[in-house]
């Protein structure tokens, strides 16, 4: 059936429609440009732009498989993954059996950004792996406010980081632009879940190889 609007509040109607449209368009644009990375972002020394801004181990070891690991510090399944496979990966790095690239994503919220930033601060102290391990074994529940500068500095202290630079870096979020770059690169790499593991650019099998230490070790042998 046909309807017509009564004339009296036409102006208010159009005003509301205009405001809603404006908020939607401006909001979406703001969010879009806010998710864009920055070419001038400060990046930790062990980071390679060519490797999706990931933190790289064994960058120059020839003839070994490349393992890309995408995680979010707040993701509970990532903590489980670390508990099962952390040692295998550390060993592969130590024995130079693989080039390993950690991509610290931050899609779960602002506390993920804080944690990712702190991990980069730790990377500058050559303590990324230790930070990574200590964080996951003390991982707080998601977005409860538990991950703040104090918490992150206590993780640092627990693994023996004492430098004032680390504390400043955590407090100031010095690498938060870089965290956005990592997120943008992960989005472009079509990573749709965490953890995600690529061996030589190909994802390993989610059903059998992620949470079985033996199968995982075999999968990353290349």
């Amino acid at each position, binding site marked *: *059936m*046909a309807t*017509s609007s009564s004339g009296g509040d036409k102006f208010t*109607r159009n005003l509301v429609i205009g405001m809603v449209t404006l908020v939607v368009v401006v*909001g979406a644009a703001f*969010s879009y440009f806010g998710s864009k990375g920055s070419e001038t972002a400060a990046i930790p020394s062990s980071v390679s732009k060519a490797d999706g801004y990931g933190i790289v181990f064994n960058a120059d070891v020839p003839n070994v498989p490349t393992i890309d690991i995408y995680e979010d510090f707040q993701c509970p399944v990532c903590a489980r993954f670390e508990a099962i496979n952390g040692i295998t990966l550390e060993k592969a790095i130590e024995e130079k059996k693989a080039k390993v690239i950690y991509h610290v994503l931050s899609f779960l919220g602002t506390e993920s950004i804080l944690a990712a930033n702190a991990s980069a601060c730790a990377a500058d102290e050559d303590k990324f792996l230790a930070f990574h391990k200590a964080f996951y074994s003390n991982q707080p529940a998601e977005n409860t406010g538990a991950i703040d500068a104090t918490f992150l500095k206590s993780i640092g202290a627990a693994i023996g980081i004492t430098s004032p630079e680390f504390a400043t870096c955590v407090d100031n979020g010095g690498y938060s632009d870089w965290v956005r770059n990592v997120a943008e690169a992960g*989005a472009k790499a079509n990573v*749709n*879940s965490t953890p995600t593991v690529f061996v030589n650019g190909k994802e390993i099998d989610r059903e059998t190889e992620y949470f079985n230490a033996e199968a995982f070790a075999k999968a990353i042998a290349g």
Partner: protein
Amino acid sequence: MILNSIDKFASGKYGSWFGLLSRLTLGGVLFAAGWLKIFVPAKSQMAVRAYEVLPIWLANILGIALPWAEVGLGVLLVLGIALRFSAIAGGAMMVLFIAAISQAWARGLSIDCGCFGGGGTVDPGETKYLSEILRDFGLALLAIYLVRYPVTRFAWEKLTKTQGVQENGN
């Protein structure tokens, strides 16, 4: 016929109240769904990519735009402004969601619809395709009701039925 009795119901005593309920339900769900995703754009982008329909760059744009559009439509529906337009847009969204979820199901992907945040790849045992489709189907029906009977209670924009003009003879 069933359409006849729906017509009778809609123009009866409770029709406009049901319209209000439809507006609040469809608008409320859209608003909540958008609001939960608006501040985690990277997660929302991930949810759209996981459907594996759109090219990655387009999925990444849609992942950011969609939550804002949902919130905007939700506000219009709840307030009852530009109701026909927002009901058509809301209904069209539901139809697209149903199509997207169905193709994921048919292709054997294991994803969460990401409707209210979340989303992305999940374990094969954790998919909820049927309930997601049924929910969106129900919301699509409400949208169709609103498109056809846009005179509802407590709408900001007061619509009146135009006397003597009946586009449909039933």
